[in-house]
């Protein structure tokens, strides 16, 4: 059996397509496999249409009014229903959303908020340790004050954590400003950050046991 001439092209074509395929696979992992793709943008629907954009943004409430444990504990904490009712006993009591809230409260049931930001369970992140060293909410959560429905803005991956733990300077700011999500440093943020690092003696660790126990 004699092969037709054109078959001599096959090896070349084959070679080319293999090269292409490999490149594609690499790209596919780098893109779709990266948390930048599959973590960022997660935005579940919440049982009650609570808008951070309205409360934190327009009305300029401080994050810590609701997440009051952020400076003391590992967890910023989701406020107990009664915290909402502090205001909403009076304010907008007729809104259907508030009615939902109240009914939960009366039934003595917790509001089943859907969890948005979540690290792997073997990663131990402590809010107080970061916030007290001048790491702003915005560094990990993004501009919550502009979100009507909360979404993930940062990859929250180990590599991403390490990047900051290795050179934190540009992520450190004045403690007074941590909840001011819109705040922009005048001048080089890294320069400013280095000063606050000295002030708060920030020396982040990269030991495994810093986050994994």
């Amino acid at each position, binding site marked *: 059996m004699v092969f037709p*001439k054109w078959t001599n092209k096959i090896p070349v074509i084959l070679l080319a397509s293999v090269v292409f395929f490999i490149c594609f696979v690499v790209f596919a992992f780098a893109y779709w496999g990266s948390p930048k793709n599959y973590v960022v943008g997660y935005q579940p629907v919440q049982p009650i249409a609570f808008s951070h954009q309205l409360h934190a943004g327009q009305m300029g409430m401080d994050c810590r009014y609701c997440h009051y444990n952020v400076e003391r504990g590992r967890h910023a904490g989701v406020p107990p229903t009664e915290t909402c009712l502090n205001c909403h006993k009076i304010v907008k009591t007729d809104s259907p959303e508030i009615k939902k809230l109240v009914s939960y409260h009366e039934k003595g049931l917790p509001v089943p908020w859907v969890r948005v930001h979540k690290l792997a369970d073997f990663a131990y992140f402590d809010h107080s340790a970061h916030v007290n060293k001048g790491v702003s909410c915005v560094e990990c959560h993004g501009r919550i004050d502009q979100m009507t429905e909360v979404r993930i803005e940062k990859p929250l991956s180990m590599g991403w954590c390490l990047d900051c733990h290795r050179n934190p300077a540009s992520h450190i700011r004045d403690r007074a400003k941590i909840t001011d999500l819109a705040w922009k440093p005048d001048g080089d943020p890294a320069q400013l950050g280095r000063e606050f690092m000295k002030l708060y003696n920030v020396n982040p660790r990269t030991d495994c046991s810093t986050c994994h126990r």
Partner: protein
Amino acid sequence: MSSSAAPRVFGVLAEFKTPADVYHAAEKVRDAGYKKWDVHSPFPIHGIERAMGIGDSKLGWIAFFCAATGAFGGFGLQYWIHKHAYPLLIAGKPMIALPAYVPVTFEPGILFTAFGCILGMLALNGLPRFYHALFKSRNFAKATDDGFFISIESRDPKFALDSARALLEAAGGKNIEVLED
């Protein structure tokens, strides 16, 4: 390769019985000054390249290049990991613990060389190539069994059908065929 409408001649093919015959025939063809021609045998004939007057193989250089790439790559990877990417203290050793880097410097070197050799060999030989005019000759099947052949290609500037055939006949070639491309 050109694909003109009219089938043009590929060249002449002649068979010889023994390695000795083909060896001496090759010397004659060489002396006749042909360039685009070749000897086909079921096994490598000792010293045939001298009889054909062809130069040395380039493969060594390819292999050497691949070896260097592999070894440097292997070492570089380890150096980069422990010096820059992931500098963790392990068993109290310094970040750059050279003796520990030897195996993974050596092995990639070998691996790359091996690929270099095989792929280089195929590339130099223009393989894989499934179509070739010679395959049209039934007789040529012997070339992988017990037949010895000389083929002179029409691409050769000195090529002239009659003179080539005459030369091969004179050299003792049997079953001389003219093959179309």
